[in-house]
């Protein structure tokens, strides 16, 4: 039952943080500050979903590494390509 409670709490946190992302944008902050907060929230939510709903926390570390490799490849492409723009 403890595990189900944990999953439910996570659901509530995810639900609220999605709302917070919209509120941050409407709070009148500087654009890049708001962008930073919103993207950090997205990454945090992704980590929580992957870690708990997809059980990565309880899988061998190699599965996390596998996904991280894909993420690293995508980030390398995005960052290097964008940096290359003159």
């Amino acid at each position, binding site marked *: 039952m403890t*595990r*189900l409670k944990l*999953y*439910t709490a996570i*659901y509530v946190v*995810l*639900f609220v943080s*999605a*709302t917070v*992302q*919209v509120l941050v*944008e409407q709070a009148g902050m500087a*654009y890049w500050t*708001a*962008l930073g907060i*919103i*993207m950090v929230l*997205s990454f945090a*939510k*992704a980590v929580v*979903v*992957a870690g708990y*709903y*997809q*059980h990565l926390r309880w*899988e*061998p570390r*190699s*599965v996390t*590494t*596998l*996904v991280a*490799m*894909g*993420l690293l*490849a*995508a*980030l*390398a*492409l*995005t960052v*290097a*390509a*964008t*940096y*290359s*723009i*003159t």
Partner: protein
Amino acid sequence: MSGDETSPDESVEADGGVAGEAVHEDHEFPPKSSVKRWFVTTNHKDVGMLYLVTSLLFLVMGGVLALLMRTQLWVPRAPGTGPLSAFAYNQAVSVHGLVMVFWFLSPFAFGFANYVVPLQIGAKDLAFPRLNALSYWFYLASGILLGVSFFQGGSFAGGWTMYAPLSLPRFVPSIGGNSAILALLLFVVSVTVGSVNFLTTIHRMRADGLTLRRLPLFTWTILLTVWMMLFAFAALLAALLILSADRLLGTTYFAAEAANGALLWTHLFWFFGHPEVYIVFFPALGVMAETFQTFTGRRIVGRKWFIAAMVLVALQSFVVWMHHMFLTSINLEIKTLFMVTTIGISLPFDLMVFSLIYTMVKGRIRFTTPFLFSFGGLLLFIVGGITGVFLGAVVLDYEFRGTYWVVAHFHYVMVAGVAALIGGLYYWYPKMTGRMYDEFLGKLHFAVFFVGFNLLYFPMFVAWETPRRDFAYDPGMTTWHQLATVGGFVFGLSFLIMVYNMVVSAYAGEPADDNPWEYASTAEWAVPSPPPLENFPGVPSYGGGRLQFLGGDSETDATESDAADSVADGGSPDGVADGAGTAEVVGGEVATPHRRAQEETHDPAPSHASIWPFGVGVAAFLALFGLSGFQNGQFASGAMGTVYAASTGVGLLGVLATLVAMARERFHGPSGPFGESWPFGGVGNVKTGVWIFLASDVVLFGAFIGAYVFLRFSTGWVAWEPIPENVTPGLVNTYLLLTSSFAVVLALEAAEREHRWGVVASLGTTLVLGLGFLGNKAIEWNHLFHEGVWLSSNVRASTFFLTTGLHAAHVITGLLIAAYMLPRAWRGAYLGDSAPIEHFGLYWHFVDIVWLFLFPLFYIL
């Protein structure tokens, strides 16, 4: 998710592949002489043979196109003169490149990978035999579609690199151009399915004691190849999906008007394209390593450093792609950085080349046909590698880019790979056919091949100033081009010697022993030639320090070696596997206590036949053939338009129906426990496969998001407003997806507690919420369309509709799976086995995660 490809109970004692072919005749598995067998087979050796034969047919196709080009180039000609029209020449150049790189080279290598890798690692088959057959049928279907494209107003004519904006309908307007790109798309799907399968197999299904350190070098090269494939082809998939959308739906990613649209294509294409060089070369390197060891009688010098160098190349291959772009508008800093990484990648290759050379020095060489081809391949690779260094230097590349220097260089590299793989064909020919080829004809083939190749390509270095992809050239270089043309025909004709030798020897060659090569020591040589259906006469194990086949009372040694690593990794001459221990082989059928035990306990015998992979392949062909007739968001009017529309509809329904039939089919794949499973021990084959697929999907979506970020930066980040003016529909959809994810979590919990109605209610909730997500999106899109915002309105709209559309396609796929599972849950299917719900959940949560990024990027920021 897709039937029980793997036995649900992987903890059941393995049967070790002891069942002979006779058992399967009861399960309607036809003999090799039956045509039906080749449509239904899922056995890795059969699929390997299919890959080999089919890829050689595509070699003929690509070769004929090349000879047409060389004929046109006999003298410099004005446009419209000579055997080929200007358009026909451009098609020949483009499709030759596409066919040779995609439809010949990799599939040829994967013919060997299919046949040999399970034997080398001690597995009865690949982890997912039906998916393996599906990979093949997708491959064949895609190749046929490429051939059909010539008859649809002309095939693709924009070069194999498909550079934008030349790849768009404005410049290549034919429907055949669409077909060629859709064919490549299907090929990429085939590769992705294959990558997941091979990665799961090699990581999870190695024999006991066969650690990665001891893995044979050919299997090592395939392992690294499929890792590169998994990520590189995902980027190509993104590029091709976007290009298809630009051509069929009218999005404007690569349009000349978009800021940096053409540059975006080069990034996406070469992020795939440079690892692709090693993807096609690594299997050839594996063949070189195996044949050098066998025919020098010497374990490869510096084996662990050789492996380390290959791992390093596989990693570095993802950080060198911009050396293909030195003549684009990328900045000087990034050019310099990528020049450094490019020169850096030559270092591990140097190590590998010297390792091979030193192995020859330390061993005693036997100049058999396989060795000659491998050695010839090494020589060609050295020339190709040295001439490539010129292109890695920014300043020199300014001069050489777009000339025949590049053409000669990459053919030396690519055909070095072909040469070694041809060596592999001769090397494993006796294993596959049970007969020896004619050695004299083999050597003659090598001589004509080697002379013809160098006569074809070396003159191109001399005539390097010839512009690439152009049939007009300086008349002063005519002699060099005529030499090249003569060389081209000599090179092409050399393959006739090979085909004659292979066909005649298959019937009249001398019967081959289990191991016809002295000093060959990997596990495929410890079983009969050709191997029995399930490969081994027991459970292969290296646990006792040497290769053994464990099978109750008749445990037998397969080798005379004292050291486990010497038999596992193709090591010392002493480690020769002679196959003497293949116990109790009677009349070609293996009978061991394991087999008898299997029959007594009524364990299901592994399945080897399914018609559904072929069915899915046919349906996919019809769907993509139909879609090729879809341009600017609609099918053409008239009879052909109707044919295309009907083909699309029938094809899509066919794909759905055949996939469902495949999922419902009773099919028993390889069951565990398997020996070595690092680093995925305890994860299970299907779950490992799902995770590997999701990792490639991360790159697919990453490339889409990367394309969005790139275009937004190019246009001006802050000035780029989100397309939806109202954030609410996006927020509501976020709530819906999050809730649906939570519902899947509840479904898994209910299944684990064996609460049937809980499972049904939770899956039903997921389905309803997913449909709600799609309905909400439909309303939102409809509203935008009414406001005049369409996919082709501008690049902002294109990125919005296409990226969220790709996500919606994932949602639809997930809902189809949920809809399939719901009635099964109703019947209590998941109460004893919650794994399918967990696997579905992994996918569904991933779709949720993607939305967590798309929502802020496309609605808020």
